């Protein structure tokens, strides 16, 4: 048998043995027995130098090829077996994945009013509005006078407003900040004013403190249609993309024209649920009353002009127009989350807080 033939035999036998190996340990034994120092193939290679010069080349090449091939076969077989063995070991290392995480991580919640406020703020940030805040203990001047409330307006009565003194009160709405921000900054102005407001009522639908978000846009060429578009975007963001808004004429001292704004009910179609029953949320009207709004009354601009240190005429109603709106955060949260009683917001029962 020639050396080359012998190499062929060794290669074939070793390849069969490698293929038959069932674990990495026996594969390691095969590596030693076929490729180790004392194995036949390496010895053959070492003996090449003693061969006839004409044979050295072919035998050496054949032995080398065989060695490389076997090494390759062992390596690939080993990675296969090692993977199977790891898989086997890991699958034996089994835990009950349904046990709770540990250590337990407490989960806190923002108050529903804060969640709702931030959600609304984010909508208006996206619409190009900035956020400003103002004092809650406010001057009568900003709360009423500068907002075109006549001196005898009933909202000024002590039954409707908390007073600290004759000219200081707890703001009854976030609207005084309209005047403060216009006094401070020139147009164009796109701001919302979230904040706490106060009125002396206390029952299931009124608490003496509640939260509003005021909106004010003053710029050249702002229209009532722009107000509608802005509030439509708001309504769709908060209550769903299918919502529509309905403007109804109304009256507020500091806007003209004034409107009340309804949002189409998100629990029914035109007042009726899918089962044909009358919707209890909108009382069958198909609309939910959500906020009051309007075009900034020229008298408010005139007031602002008298208060400003800046260049006169920046708030000239022939130059700029604006819209303003005010919405109740509690109202939005109650509608959206089905909260039945305003007082739940202020009880702060942790079961309520953690529900949302």
């Amino acid at each position, binding site marked *: 048998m020639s050396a080359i033939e012998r190499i062929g035999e060794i290669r074939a036998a070793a390849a069969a043995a490698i293929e038959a190996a069932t674990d990495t340990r026996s594969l390691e034994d095969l590596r030693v027995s076929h490729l180790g120092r004392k194995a036949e193939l390496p010895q053959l290679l070492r003996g090449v130098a003693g061969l006839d010069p004409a044979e050295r080349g072919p035998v050496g090449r054949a032995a080398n090829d065989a060695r490389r091939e076997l090494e390759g076969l062992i390596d690939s077989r080993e990675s296969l077996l090692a993977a199977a063995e790891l898989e086997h070991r890991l699958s034996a290392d089994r835990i009950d994945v349904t046990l709770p995480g540990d250590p337990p*991580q407490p989960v*806190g919640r923002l*108050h529903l009013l804060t969640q709702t406020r931030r959600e609304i703020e984010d909508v208006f940030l996206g619409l190009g509005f*900035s956020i400003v805040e103002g004092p809650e203990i406010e001057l009568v001047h900003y709360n009423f006078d500068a907002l075109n409330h006549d001196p005898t307006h009933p909202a000024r*009565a002590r039954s409707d407003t*908390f007073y600290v003194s004759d000219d200081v009160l707890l703001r009854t709405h976030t609207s005084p900040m309209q005047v403060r921000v216009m006094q401070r900054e020139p147009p164009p102005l796109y701001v919302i004013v979230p904040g*706490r407001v106060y009125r002396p009522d206390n029952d299931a639908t009124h608490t003496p403190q509640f939260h509003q978000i005021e909106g004010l846009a003053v710029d050249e060429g702002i229209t009532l249609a722009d107000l509608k578009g802005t509030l439509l975007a708001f309504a769709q963001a908060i209550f769903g993309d299918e919502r529509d808004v309905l403007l109804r004429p109304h009256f507020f001292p500091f806007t003209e024209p004034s409107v009340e704004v309804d949002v189409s009910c998100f629990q029914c179609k035109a007042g009726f649920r899918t089962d044909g029953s009358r919707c209890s949320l909108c009382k069958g009207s198909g609309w939910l009353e959500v906020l009051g709004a309007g075009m900034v009354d020229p008298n408010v601009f005139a007031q602002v002009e008298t208060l400003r240190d800046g260049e006169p005429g920046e708030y000239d109603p022939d130059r700029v127009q604006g819209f303003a709106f005010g919405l109740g955060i509690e109202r939005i949260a109650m509608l959206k989350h089905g909260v039945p009683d305003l007082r739940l917001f202020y009880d702060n*029962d942790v079961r309520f807080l953690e529900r949302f």
Partner: protein
Amino acid sequence: MLVPMTLLRSFCDPQLTTAELAARLTMTGTKDERVFHVGVTEPDGFVVGHVLDVAPHPDADRLRVCTVDVGAGVPATIVCGAPNVAAGQTVAVARPGAVLPDGRKLKAAKLRGILSEGMILSETELAVGSDHDGIMVLDPPSADGSVVSPQSAGLCAGMSLAEAIELSSDVIEFEITPNRVDCLGVYGIAREVHASTGATLQPPPWVEDPGTTEGDAGGAEVVVEAAELCRRFMVRAFDGIRIGQSPAWLKARLLWAGMRPISNVVDITNYVMLLTGQPLHAFDFDRVAGRRLVVRRAADGELVETLDGETRTLDTEIVVICDADGPTSIAGIMGGARTEVAPNTTRVLLEAATWNGANIQRSSTRLGLRSEASGRYEKGLEPEVAADGLAYATRLLIEICGARALPGTIDVGGPGPDPAVIRLRPARVAGLLGKAIDSDRCAEILTALDFAVTPAPAVDESGVLEPTGALDLDVTVPYFRRADVTREVDLIEEVARIDGVDRLPATLPPRNGAAGRLTHAQRARRRAEDVLVGRGLDEIVGWSFTDPGLLDRLRLPERHPMRRTVRIANPLSEALSLMRPTVLGSLLDVARHNVARGAASVQIFESGTVYREHGADGPGAATATKVTGSPADEHHALAALLTGPFGGRSWRGGGHPPAADFFTAKGLLAAVLDTLRVDWAVASAGWSFLHPGRSANVLLGDRRIGFLGEVHPLVADAWDLERTAVFSINLDVVLAAAPPVISYGGLSDYPAVLQDLSVVLADDVSADRVLAVVRANGGRELVGVDVFDVYRGDQVGPGRFSLTLHLEFRAADRTLTDAEVADRRSSITKALAGELGGELRA
């Protein structure tokens, strides 16, 4: 305002259902609050009956057996309990099967053995009047025996009752906005219906005034002394009055509009008010002492007895109408008992006045007395409406009460100023609304609302041609809209609301250069709140109001800054009379609420405003003028409270986590302040409401920004709480100090050397002093030092403790050698020994 549809439709009937009409008016600014039905639901079974015979009931003293012609051939037998039933009367009868307004379905039934085939009805049973003393007689004879009610003429037995009288009506309750005084009268609403629907509007019922201006008004005299509060005072005198019941239609309409029918004269004044919005008052002329009315301010403490029998005490802001014997009525609010119309009245002095709305509102609040009249007056009526009311009432007194108007009208004050003429530019309409409404449509709408509209002249006053004049309109404001419509923008509102604001396009503003974004402080505030939420705290929203007792429960000493509270002058109650000077009270209240409801532990925080009076250093309240900053010292606080175990129990052993204490609260505070990257510290300090040994100031640099500690056990006890840890900081200051941008500081590629160092110290040495000494002596290669262990016990002996620190050395430019680190360490230990008496622990 309650508006019976039968009445409204008599002036303008758009052939819409009540619901459609309500919806239409809502969309033009007259919103319906509710819609309901009054009177019978179905007219079937209600007929006119003629009482043929009345006989006593054999077995019941109070019942009568009546034979009534109901047009059915055979007369019906009806048992009736009313004392006033008599043969010859024309009455309202319900036949078996009829459904009464209260829902009862009538059946033929035996009454004490006699079968009654129906029921003779009272006004109350039909819900068309308030008289329940007897049955309703459809043709009550008046004093002189003539038939009073024109409607009762031509009644015959068996005809449907609905043809004889108004049996039922829908009623809409409208919300009338305060600018629309004209809609406090049904005619004003009819005008709205006309403008909104185009249906024909009947002319106002006051256009033909049967009264006269020439004459002495029966010799009556009027003196208005308080002219500043009485814009107009008009009087007419009548004689030949026959007091009686009003006709059925009038009673029904008043009742359905929420007013109780009383007598024909009083009912007429109320009905005229219902239609025109103008309250009127009828005096019994013969009881007006001296035939002279004087309008003046009341004297302080002056008394008057009002129609309702109450004696009222007056003050100088209240206007009274007096005769020679003193006050007879309170102006604009309620008439007096002494001169009221009585059954024997034959001469009436009818007053229609215009009062100062604000004054009436104040007086009515002051007296606790509100009436249909005061509710209208306080909105501010126009003087012309007084004349309208007087004219229509004159007509009704003549038609219904047989009165004769004595010649002459006393009119003090007269009508209001000439109407304003306002230019309306359609270009401006489009500019404000975002939708073009052309000149013709504007004119059509305004004309329908009784504004007079003419094209604006194409030249200005100086005779120069105006290029844009052609489409502009000059609009004359009718007197009944005088206060509401004074500017072009008010006209634009009229056009917009009738054209339909619901039909505007939805567009977005131009946003010239505006970009919406949160400020750094706003983002940082959200971040601070989120840090606490992320660590398991629930946010609460507490009351801004608190009770004065809070300050004592917190054991605040006199002159403590938190005692500089803002007090509400008219609180809902004493318990809600202060604005909170700290969030702590809110947190304690909420903790108690939840512990009382079984919560084993409470972890909460609030991010909200606290309020104090301006201090001497602040912009004091005294210097706050009408145009400066805020009148009180307000800041945004972030405060947390923890009571009970913080965190859940591990199923892998270890039991419950310990109850939250000082360090739990400090850890959370650190998380907030470190997240915002402010340089903060705490220093032991006493707070009256905190445990004296576990109480600290929170410092930002040298400035105290809040407190941290365990609540004093006596304070905790006052809220029924166990050990409770809290902190509160002025978040405004923290947010201002938080760096908005962090710069890259380089990362060293060289390895750190980590070492532990234990030092034994006297008990009174604080950890932060140790850390300060270590930092000061560790060189700039000392990049980190943490407290690792604190030990007290036998190994260090009494009065001492051991502090183990974890030190991290690293150089930016080289690997530190052992010798360098040993050198730094030795400087540290020397300093600790020298400055703090610290001994290295083996």
